[in-house]
């Protein structure tokens, strides 16, 4: 047993944990911004899927990974605008709109991937992002390889957590966003355009989900597959609830999920005589358990799921 633990918790394990957490942090923060503005963005799974495809394809043809990331973000922004049109402008059900956006975006990602690449005998691949060791820091034993020898997007994700917390807490836009999510009529009375702030939140939300998708197809893997997201978007919605709509706690939730995911990957490779799918199942089961533990006391933004109409009070 001791030997097994030693095998599990090596430097490589923790480095993998950080890498697995990265797309979850991007997408969770994206979902968090939307929800703090009062919109449940169930388009997340599809947006990540479509962005993973557009990002990958752009990188494949342009040879520029960063152009790919930009394309993925643009994809997310467009999907965010669509979500905004449905739920903000038209005031339609956020649940059904989000599922519609997910179905549409995942359909589009399959369709365009097949249109662009056909059915080749070998999967098209790109040269994925290379780790960018931080000079000096990456040489520290243990901590260096775990924290400071990663893709540049990994550092960006971790830098975004305090940034998101600061934006929400201290900037005027963050204050407007929170008011719009808690009490849109008060925000309106104070002269804030509820519609505009919600659109902005959804565009930001989509952009972050886009980076998350791009990370999966361009850094974590070097190809796009139909199973590239496989439920990670839905997990991020759970992480926002688990993190009580707080960027720090949600990111901590993402790390916890990544820990379990990294653990199951190691266990799959270990000598346990169990089908590997049992381990694949584990993070999802624990996500539900985690949600059950916190949801009773969770305090969602008060105006979440309610469309805003000026004339109705």
């Amino acid at each position, binding site marked *: 047993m001791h030997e097994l633990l030693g095998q599990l918790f090596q430097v490589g394990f923790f480095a993998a944990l950080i890498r697995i957490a990265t797309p979850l942090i991007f997408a969770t923060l994206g979902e968090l911004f939307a929800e703090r503005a009062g919109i449940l963005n169930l388009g997340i799974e599809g947006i990540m899927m479509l962005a993973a495809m557009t990002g990958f394809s752009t990188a494949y043809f342009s040879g520029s990974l960063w152009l790919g990331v930009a394309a993925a973000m643009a994809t997310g922004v467009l999907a965010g605008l669509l979500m905004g049109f449905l739920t903000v402008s038209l005031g339609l059900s956020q649940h059904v709109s989000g599922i519609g956006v997910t179905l549409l975006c995942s359909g589009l990602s399959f369709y365009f991937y097949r249109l662009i690449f056909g059915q080749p005998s070998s999967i098209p691949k790109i040269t994925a992002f290379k780790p960018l060791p931080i000079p000096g820091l990456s040489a520290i034993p243990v901590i260096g390889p775990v924290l400071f020898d990663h893709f540049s997007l990994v550092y960006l994700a971790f830098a975004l957590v305090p940034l998101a917390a600061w934006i929400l807490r201290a900037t005027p836009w963050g204050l407007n966003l929170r008011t719009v999510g808690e009490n849109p009529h008060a925000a309106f009375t104070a002269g804030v355009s509820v519609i505009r702030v919600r659109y902005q939140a959804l565009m930001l939300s989509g952009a972050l989900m886009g980076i998350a998708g791009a990370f999966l197809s361009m850094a974590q893997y070097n190809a796009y597959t139909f199973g590239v997201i496989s439920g990670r978007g839905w997990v991020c919605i759970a992480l926002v609830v688990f993190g009580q709509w707080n960027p720090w706690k949600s990111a901590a939730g993402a790390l916890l999920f990544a820990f379990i995911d990294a653990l199951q990957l190691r266990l799959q490779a270990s000598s346990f005589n169990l089908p590997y799918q049992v381990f694949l199942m584990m993070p999802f089961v624990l996500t539900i358990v985690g949600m059950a533990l916190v*949801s009773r006391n969770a305090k969602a933004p008060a105006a979440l799921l309610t469309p805003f109409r000026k004339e109705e009070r």
Partner: protein
Amino acid sequence: MIGLRIESREQTPLWLNVTLPLMAVAATLILCSGLILLAGANVFTAYEKLFLSALSTRFNLVETAVKATPLIFTGLAVAVAFKARFWNIGAEGQLLAGAMAAAFVGARESLPAWSLCPGMILAGIAAGALWAMIPAVLKTRFKVDDVVTSLLLNFIIFYGMMALLDGPWKDPLSGYPDSPDIRMDAEFPILLRATRLHLGVLLAAIASFGTWLLMRRTTVGFAIQAVGENPVAARYAGFSVNGVILATAAVSGALAGLAGVGEVAGLHFQVMAGLSPGYGYTGIVIAMLARLNPLGVVPAAFFFAVIITGAEAMSRATGVPVFLADVIQGTALIAMLVALLFTRYRIRIRRFSHA
């Protein structure tokens, strides 16, 4: 001068129930024709293949009805759940639960032959209902969001099923990750000779009518609608809101479970990875297009069965990717949601006089 004014409606005229889905479908096809053009194909040829190949011969028509069967069940499952605003996105997983239960019962050598078909149906109903109870209990007891849990449970049961199929449940004869075949006596009878039209197709039609009766003529149905429309008022009217949500989940899950039973007992005779190519998710689109009316689910399911079957033929003939079917589903859901605005508002054309 002519101006457009949007005003809210008091009542929804009856003709809208039929025209709205048609409008939504028309809008969807117009929007998706852009994708066909991008693929360099002729829009009319592509749509002709998409729609007519599934209806062209008697054989294809029967195949389309067989394809529509699981979609009717999942469409009904979603329609019942959404009526109560219980957001069951888990029909996919409940279908698998029903399929596994059916495949397990259908392969029992110890059971008398006569009991196999009814046993599979009952087991499938129970398994689907139980799996749907998980998000319902989590929602009512722990206030956990039903959308997320019912979605995550789809992944859990899929991986669980694959673990079984890769492990103790693997068919020793084939060596593939498939379950052993059910017994011959357990197979649903074929209703039309030399076709695959099985008992499940009839069961789906009966289920549609039964669900309609349940929703329109019974207290349970009334309670489901009352909770969906206004939980507070429903509570004052004496309904236990949590109890109604649990009952809704059970009915919804049972219907989705039957989709799995039909696929196992009537079509595949075993459980395998590709058992459901997303029937549970298509059920959401179908239920919305049917405006959550159980009778409307049948034509809506048939429509998507045509598209799913026709997409292969269209792809072979024109080179348009088969995934156009998926895009159509997503677009149709969004278009229908937008079209539903016309039930609440109307556009009035007014003439202004220059007085």
